[in-house]
């Protein structure tokens, strides 16, 4: 599905841009980080809603296209994907809104006729950015790539927060300068 693939690529790129901006000279740019976060969120929302639609359609079509389904199980993301996460994902899509949606293995049950995502064929790349979605009580084994990807996203979100925290501390230094507004804000 073009929209899903595009959304995922945008999310992946947003994350890598956020990550690389940490090393940028001059510090994190709040405006740019905000735009990237907004893009990532909207891509994630579109991705999930598109996947939900496709899953509903897939369930309706499952009995008629069982042969084609196996063909679409391309070696896209063979390391961390299993069949179980997909089902878990479907039930968690609503409650997991806050967490990363960087799914890398959504195409296992694509109905026939939908384009397979060939853009991100690199398994290494998928390892880094794909993340198995899990419920709070999930007992799925900890796949190393998934954990790493989750950390990255949390780190990325922490960038904005830590920037804010740092700025909060910086305000302390500003208290030496008699600026009425900053003093009041304490």
């Amino acid at each position, binding site marked *: 599905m073009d929209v899903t693939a595009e959304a995922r690529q945008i999310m992946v790129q947003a994350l890598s841009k956020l990550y690389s901006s940490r090393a940028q000279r*001059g510090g994190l740019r709040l405006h740019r980080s*905000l*735009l990237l976060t907004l*893009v990532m969120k909207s891509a994630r929302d579109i991705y999930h809603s598109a996947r939900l639609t496709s899953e509903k359609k897939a369930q309706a079509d499952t009995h008629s296209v069982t042969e084609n389904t196996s063909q679409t199980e391309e070696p896209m993301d063979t390391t961390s994907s299993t069949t179980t996460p997909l089902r878990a994902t479907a039930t968690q899509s609503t409650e997991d809104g806050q967490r990363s949606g960087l799914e890398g293995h959504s195409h296992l049950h694509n109905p026939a006729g939908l384009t397979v995502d060939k853009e991100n064929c690199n398994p290494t790349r998928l390892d880094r950015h794909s993340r198995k979605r899990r419920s709070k009580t999930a007992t799925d084994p900890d796949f190393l790539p998934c954990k790493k990807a989750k950390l990255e996203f949390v780190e990325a979100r922490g960038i904005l927060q830590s920037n804010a925290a*740092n700025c909060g*501390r910086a305000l302390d230094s500003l208290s030496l300068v008699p600026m009425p507004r900053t003093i009041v804000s304490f």
Partner: protein
Amino acid sequence: MWSSCWTYSLNLSSVPGDGDSQSRWCLSQVKGAVDDDVAEADIISAVEFNHSGELLATGDRGGRIVIFQQEQESKNLPQCHAEYNVYSTFQSHEPEFDYLKSLEIEEKINKIRWLPQKNAAHFLLSTNDKTIKLWKISERDKRPEGYNLKEEDGRYRHPSSLTTLRVPVFQPMDLMVEASPRRVYANAHTYHINSISVNSDNETYLSADDLRINLWHLDFTDRSFNIVDIKPANMEELTEVITASEFHPLQCNTFVYGSSKGSVRLCDMRASALCDQHSKLFEEPEDPSTRSFFSEIISSISDVKFSHSGRYMMTRDYLTLKIWDLHMESRPVEIYQVHGYLRSKLCSLYENDCIFDKFECCWRGDDSEVMTGSYNNFFRMFDRDAQRDATLEATWENGSPGCPLKTWRVSAGSRRKRNEIGVDCLDFSRKILYTSWHPQDNIVALATVNNLYIFQEKLN
């Protein structure tokens, strides 16, 4: 870099051509190095004419400012304005290190704003991400000579040789232009400064970063007043940042600020000390048919400029220029497509980061035309009265010197004809972000990556 500066001047000649594809503009000068290998420090990051147009200041990523001065009008070339030559060069900002946050503070000049001239000296404000400086540029063409206690070379005379007294007198000397920092306004911004604007009262100015706007008095560096603060209590709820801000040219109580969401707020400082509540909100409802992944990014305002009359204001977002009547908040009165052909290319522009480029815009002195930059070293001129627009290219590889610039057209695909170029052939590494229009005459200055271009309109 500026020591290797060269000038490429063209004499205007009347060359007949089809009126449609020729503009009134001609290349006047190009400043800067010609080699393709550009040092990061030499990349121009600010361009600004002063209030008379006699001086043109540029800032670069290395923290330097170069000021050009227009020569006296030459009588032998009545059909063109005089040239600009280097007047003063100085290091405005140095890289610094914030030890508290372990962050380097870039020396890149973000904005230059001239103060109106009050005496023989010229004053300008320049800012990097964190610190604003007031620079005084003055000429010295005489020096005192005939001291009693000192020789001309500075050595002190022997007291026993002093038998007479005389009064030192000023003698002419070679012109020397000195730039000295008169004020340093520091430590007032937590986030990166994106705008400075001098008030019409000539006493105060504002500086804006991503979340706050501060009001300063030019004479005082140890205090500033926060007038806008949009920082949320919880940074996770941040949805909008300030991207540009400017004082009204005539009303000293009014200023505007643009946001990353595409809205502009007009504030009146008489209403309250803290202008978090806007007086007017200029926002155009989003067209749902054009919604895409990148709608938020491309609606972010990159520049906001009042017209000289103070009646209108212009905003620049990624694809359009919008002219707003200050009396009407609901929608702009004019919308100009700068490079609408990029709308289908947003994904690639996001990939190569071009979608985050911040273009400036400027008004002609009489507000009848506006201008902004684009990619492929194109710049766009919009004639508001005639409702005509032109795409011109800033290049010194001019096929036919002395001719008015030919206008360009951008077509879909990769076709390449004479003065027509396909969207796929555009060079996105060559972009014009910074532009300035002479306040009275039709002279425009714009910066490509490392060159300063000056264009003039044909006078006859």
